[in-house]
């Protein structure tokens, strides 16, 4: 029987889960017994063989008859939730972009992990402190490319949605296409751009819920018309419109 090789992080995770379950079991027992024990500390001295593959260190526990093993001591104590908050980085939020989920190569992810970056927020923090991340720790990370990929990933989680299109006359009695939807123009730094059948059209107003596009030839909508809207560098929509009877 050969023991699995493991990474320290995996092992400690499993150990913590075991200890948590132990404490839960003992807490349930304590409901019926006014006096019972709870675990305060756990320490393990392990005989292990470490191996380094150039990327990570893995360990294999020593088997029967094996000599020359190294010894690793893992000690788990107890800590309050307040102490955890004070000494740990806040967990990555539900809407936050994790570095593991964006489309960057494995090498870059590894480099980012090495300098403690696990989310887009971590990168922002580094940027705010004016640290040149491309020079941090000999990382060779292309920050501008990374920032683009993060924005792309963030936008992919909140894509624009078109719900309706209608042709009206605007305040200047000019024909105007009103596109209603959700999360349309959300980037204030980038004014939306629209093409009607390949020709640039004037976007007169934009908001997350609505786009107003000036139409030069409203009669063109009698046949299928292609409308392309680029609401920010990471969201391009293509819709086909044709004028029909009002519902």
């Amino acid at each position, binding site marked *: 029987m050969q023991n699995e090789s493991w990474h320290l992080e995996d092992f400690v995770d*499993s150990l913590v889960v075991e200890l948590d379950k132990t404490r839960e079991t003992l807490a349930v027992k304590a409901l019926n017994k006014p006096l019972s024990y709870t675990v305060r500390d756990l320490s393990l001295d392990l005989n292990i063989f470490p191996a380094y593959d150039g990327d990570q260190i893995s360990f294999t526990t020593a088997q029967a008859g094996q000599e020359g093993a190294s010894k690793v001591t893992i000690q788990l104590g107890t800590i309050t939730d307040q102490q955890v908050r004070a000494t740990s980085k806040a967990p990555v939020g539900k809407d936050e972009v994790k570095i593991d989920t964006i489309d960057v190569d494995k090498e870059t992810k590894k480099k980012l992990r090495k300098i403690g970056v696990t989310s887009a927020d971590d990168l922002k923090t580094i940027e705010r402190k004016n640290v040149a991340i491309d020079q941090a720790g000999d990382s060779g990370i292309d920050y501008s490319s990374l920032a683009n990929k993060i924005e792309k990933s963030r936008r992919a989680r909140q894509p624009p949605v078109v719900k309706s299109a209608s042709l009206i006359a605007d305040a200047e009695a000019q024909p105007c296409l009103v596109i209603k939807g959700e999360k349309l123009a959300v980037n204030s730094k980038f004014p939306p751009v629209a093409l009607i059948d390949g020709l640039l059209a004037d976007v007169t107003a934009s908001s997350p819920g609505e786009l107003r596009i000036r139409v030069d030839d409203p009669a063109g909508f009698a046949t299928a018309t292609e409308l392309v809207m680029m609401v920010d560098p990471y969201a391009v929509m293509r819709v086909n419109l044709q004028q029909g009877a009002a519902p």
Partner: protein
Amino acid sequence: MDEAFRHLRETIVSLVDQPPVVGHGPFAQRVSMTAIEIEMPLELDITRDAAGVLAIGITPPLYLLKTSVLPSFHQMRVRASLRPDPGDEANDAE
């Protein structure tokens, strides 16, 4: 996990599940144990389940015989104390 091994939590719960007050009868002397500290050798079986999660199986030394090829004995220390204790009250107050 090999059938001779148990999950770490099962072993620890068994170890610390001791009567806090030792003594019998109305006139017997009674001893109260406020803490238990156990240090023991153990054999370890580490496996990975289908989800890739490590399972830590442990057992005290399975055989007392000194064979020519001995298992690798790791060491575990567990410290448990009575609940509730002053530390718990301090934690509750936070």
